[in-house]
């Protein structure tokens, strides 16, 4: 298993083996699942309460379907770990985090200094997403 390089959660690490979305439907005891780009994240929504970890795979970082998957899961209230795995690159990190990813296990470990800079890059953001950050339009009209 590829190592988790960055994790933004304080709960205990989850190392449960992740099954495919198809297998998950059959296995009532599975607590971790892996979502591929073509999978429909909605299929998991009835079972979120028994999931601790959802891995979202990026076979190529330029295929952005996993961003929508993560947001769909967070918008449905999933509070467990959403881990980006596969071809995860420095320049995706802050955008992944904005879409609800809170753990990152890149195939190739990333330069820690570059990654830290990337996570801290954007002081403010234009959109409301599931990460709970106040978008710029909210800051403009608060109070």
């Amino acid at each position, binding site marked *: 298993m590829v190592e988790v390089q960055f994790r933004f959660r304080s709960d205990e690490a989850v190392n449960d083996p992740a099954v495919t979305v198809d297998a998950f439907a059959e296995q009532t005891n599975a607590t971790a699942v892996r979502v591929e*780009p073509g999978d429909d994240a909605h299929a998991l929504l009835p079972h979120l309460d028994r999931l601790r970890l959802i891995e979202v795979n990026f076979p190529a*970082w*330029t*295929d*952005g*379907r996993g*961003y*929508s998957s993560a*947001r769909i899961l967070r*918008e449905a209230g999933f509070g467990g770990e959403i881990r980006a795995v596969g071809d995860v*690159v*420095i*320049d995706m990190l*802050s*955008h*992944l985090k*904005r*879409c609800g990813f809170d753990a990152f296990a890149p195939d190739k470990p990333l*330069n820690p200094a*570059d990654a830290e*800079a990337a996570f801290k*890059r*954007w*002081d*403010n*953001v*234009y*959109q*409301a*997403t*599931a990460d709970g950050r106040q*978008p*710029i*339009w*909210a*800051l*403009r*009209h608060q109070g």
Partner: protein
Amino acid sequence: MYKYDQYDQQMVDTRVAEFRDQVRRRIDGELTEDQFRPLRLQNGLYLQLHAYMLRVAVPYGTLNSTQMAMLGDIADKYDRGYGHFTTRQNIQYNWIKLEDTPDILADLASVEMHAIQTSGNCIRNISSDQYAGAASDEVIDPRPYAELLRQWSSFHPEFLTLPRKFKIAVIASDTDRAAMRLHDIGIQMVRNPNPENGAGEIGARFYVGGGMGRTPMIGPMIRAFVPLDQLITYSEACLRVYNRHGRRDNKYKARIKILVHELGKDEYTRQVEEEFQHLLDQGIEPPLAELERIGQYFADPAWETGLSDELDLSDPDFRLWAERNCHAHKQAGYVIATVSLKPVGGIPGDATADQIRLMARIAKDYSFDELRVTHAQNIVFPHLRKADLYAVWRMLDEAGLGTANLDTVGDIIACPGLDYCSLANARSIPIAQKISERFGSPAKQAEIGELKLKISGCINACGHHHAGHIGILGVDRKGVENYQLLLGGCEGADTSLGQITGPGFDEDGIVDAVEKATEVYLANKQGEERFLDTYRRIGMAPFKEAIYG
């Protein structure tokens, strides 16, 4: 005009820092070209035939004189003294060095400009009506909505790696001057047509799945009215369905028009509506107060009232230009003037640094500090006093910018083609030059009247050949440039796609074929018909016969 606040400025400054870091990592070897390419593209940096090319965004085609002057200065400082205005209201520079790019972006940021998302598989610069805020036929100025969408689409974390590029246009009049229905999303601001539910309030009509390229499609309407306080939410639903289901197996079938076509308009709409209902509860919509804040920047300038509408047209050259290149303004005593970047024999859309700075000065002195870039690759002064028009034209004319040919056969849209573009199959610019020379006489242009001629150097259709009354498509026939002729295309309220006449031509043959097409028009024209009207009435056959017979 919109002005950045501290947040907007911080966003572009951060982007400059991010790209500076990406360039460093590329030059240091941390990034391979394959890894770097998508990153540089999202900053408008291409590799073209001769060098890097940088495309700078002109959001909804509006800019002030300081910004325009900076575009001229960049052309001198970092390029070879000129820039090329594009069919998406942007400007591109053809001779850029990678190591200079972060500094160019910093110079742009200093005047509230950027190159964010001017390329790549993301939401591109949002285009609009070049007469916005000045034309009398709009229901409202569309630009505040375009600016709201600009901010929403900038660095939208979910939509930076879409199946393919994504272009949005926002207009607010039935006279569509932005080819709205040939965009991935075309938005027309309208008054609510439903009398039971707030009739008369402003909202957005959504057309989705239009586009040019190798499979041109006219976007169908999917929603007649989206209330203003749901505009972003509805857009987000349109994009999410596309991001999840747009084809990624074939680059040539990855645009949203293919998804809408394959699913069918009704099924795509159903999925969008379902996603929309879900997203309504997610709190992603900016408050209406934000639209009001943005809208204040687009308030009318301080017009002078009581101005005369009289124009002294005693100079015949001026008269020609004033009648051809000017459009009625909503305010008495003012006029909208278009500067043609299509001199006879010139390169469509190119302007020198000096010309760019001159237009900036004129805008500052005479047009309330505003200019527009048009998708037809021209520049507009939106608010000129009629009393100043002659003086302005004299300045333009002395600088080679006084050509009187708006919307005529000389006002050709042409992509850079094989002279600059690495995707092109044939050169576009020499064809445009030859046609503009063939039809160079003002009398000939006046006789033919409105005729929109558009040339693309490959099937990607950056030169909008599908939408030309006369379109020309350059192809590669066994290593030799060859040109196909299309007739009957049109953008605007009555959008239609051109049809290919038949076998292609060589460089001189295509110019002859265009001339024959105009002869058929002149011989068959009834009353005030334009070329397009005559074509639509008599059909392809007489043209084919004249061209190939």
